[in-house]
């Protein structure tokens, strides 16, 4: 059980997050929607430990991850919106930063990296990869610690449908193994993938159920 309780964050006089509360069950995908600058990415960076919040709790199975950074690094994987890869290196070299040689071979043969299809382009330099390949590689790098929770900031933005489908396929497999995800998104397909969605506005989280009515969604943002 993942609990996010009463998260507060302000920049100067501007309150970005004003008591954000929600839970994520194992094997559940939660979508965070909101306009640009509403605080979606800020919430994810706080949960990933990139910045401190003013107040709040973030627990997984009762363990406070805001205080235990080592455990957080192990249990939580964060995939930022920007590409975190070293473009001069190949997929293999990028992965080697996070996997031992043995575990990398194993994961490429039958593990998470195989599921992501990285085995098909492991020797390709990042500079020659498509956007979808890069995004899958990012996810592959993030998954090295076998995390319980994935934090994804607009994971399939600007990708074509084929690439999106490959990534969604992996998300489904991750979910089926009990993995949880929090996705900050604008994409309708990603919203459809989510089990639950929240809209963040004025620093407060509100429940939202997507029913295909996009004008209604836009009106809520």
């Amino acid at each position, binding site marked *: 059980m993942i609990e996010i309780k009463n998260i507060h964050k302000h920049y100067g006089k501007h309150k970005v997050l004003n008591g954000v509360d929600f839970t994520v069950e194992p094997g559940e995908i939660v979508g965070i929607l909101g306009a640009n600058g509403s605080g979606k990415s800020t919430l994810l960076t706080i949960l990933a430990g990139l910045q401190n919040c003013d107040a709040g709790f973030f627990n997984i199975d009762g363990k406070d991850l805001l205080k235990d*950074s*080592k455990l957080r690094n192990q249990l939580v994987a964060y995939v930022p919106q920007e590409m975190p890869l070293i473009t001069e290196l190949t997929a293999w070299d990028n992965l080697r930063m996070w996997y031992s040689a043995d575990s990398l071979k194993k994961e490429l043969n039958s593990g998470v990296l195989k599921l992501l299809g990285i085995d098909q382009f492991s020797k390709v330099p990042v500079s020659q990869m498509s956007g979808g390949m890069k995004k899958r590689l990012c996810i592959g790098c*993030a998954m090295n610690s076998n995390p319980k929770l994935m934090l994804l900031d607009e994971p399939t933005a600007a990708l074509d449908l084929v690439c999106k489908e490959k990534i969604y396929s992996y998300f489904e497999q991750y979910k089926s193994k009990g993995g949880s995800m929090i996705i900050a998104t604008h994409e309708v397909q990603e919203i459809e993938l989510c089990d639950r969605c929240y809209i963040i506005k004025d620093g407060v989280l509100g429940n939202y159920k997507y029913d295909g009515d996009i004008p209604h969604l836009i009106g809520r943002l």
Partner: protein
Amino acid sequence: MLPGMICMIALVAILLSAALFGVLNSEKYKSEQIRYKLGLVGGTENEMVDLGVHMLETEDDMQYVLDLVQFEDEDEARAALRNADISAYIVITKEFTDAVDSMTNDAKLKYYATSGQKGISNVMMDEIALVATNIIVPSEKGICTLRDVMAEEGYKKTETYMAVYEIFMAYVNTMLLRGEISTVTELGISDGLNTIEYYFISMLLFFALLLTMCSVSFFTGKNNGQYKFLAAKGIIPVQQVMGEFIPLLTVNLISIVVVLVIANAAVKLVAIDIEISAMLVAGIMLSTVMFTSMGYFLYETLVGVINKVLVTFLFYIAGAYASGYFYPKSILPNLLQRAGELIPTGAAFSYVGGVVADRNFGWPVIAMAVYTVGFIAISVLIRKRRISW
């Protein structure tokens, strides 16, 4: 990456060698090595004049600025003057030597000089006249007078010899004392460094400065996503910065060692009078550490490739000018000179210059350490801010 770095190091080495060669062949450097050559015509048959010339060559301060060249006759000396082999010549006439022997003071030396670029200065002429008229001539006259008076009074030759010897030794002591009045100090063109030392150091430091631009982009300037990703994996900003800075520093130190090895070979090849000592190498290496931290800081602070390259280059050029890398900073206003000393490039120059000129270099080392730590600390803060954006 590697071929690019090797090419850059080779380019730096070639530029350094070319610059050293240029300095060695410059008129300024050559002229600094030249002492004034003064021709002497006649006078050698007179033992006292001969003694005076000998003392001038060996005991007097003038030995450091004058080379005395003996000529058989005036025509030969005049030809040498026309060919610029000598700067001037003095004719010691028979009248002069007779006047010395007869203890009169009515004969003068004849001095000939050109007014060209290599002509001897008025100050030098006055100095020669001073030595001749105030020390050599009266002293020698005193010795001759003693010898003649003792002969007239009927002293035995051995007694005369002993007395003349005694006063002669007093004369020699006087000349030696005159030589000890002042010590000759080579002031050089700036801060106790001669031309070759000055430009050797400034060029090495300038290339060390430029080297920091060569490979810094390989280690910095990644997108914020990478920094965020690393931070989410538990690699905190200080670890990220040091993880980039240490390999960058290693590359720069290896590069500067290669440049120093080539510079050492160039120095030996063209026989430049400078010693690349362990202290000098350490000085350049420490300067490279500070320059690397400065380059890293600038690349971490600035945004955009063109911006980074342009601003860093202009920053380096301005710093190098203000710190006197291209010309001695004495040409600058006093305030700017002081500022030029205090900035990182100036601290490095003061340190390495102090090592070569054997001066106290305590404060520049402290300043360099403070700058290095400061640049890295600010870089860490900037990285921290980027991650939280």
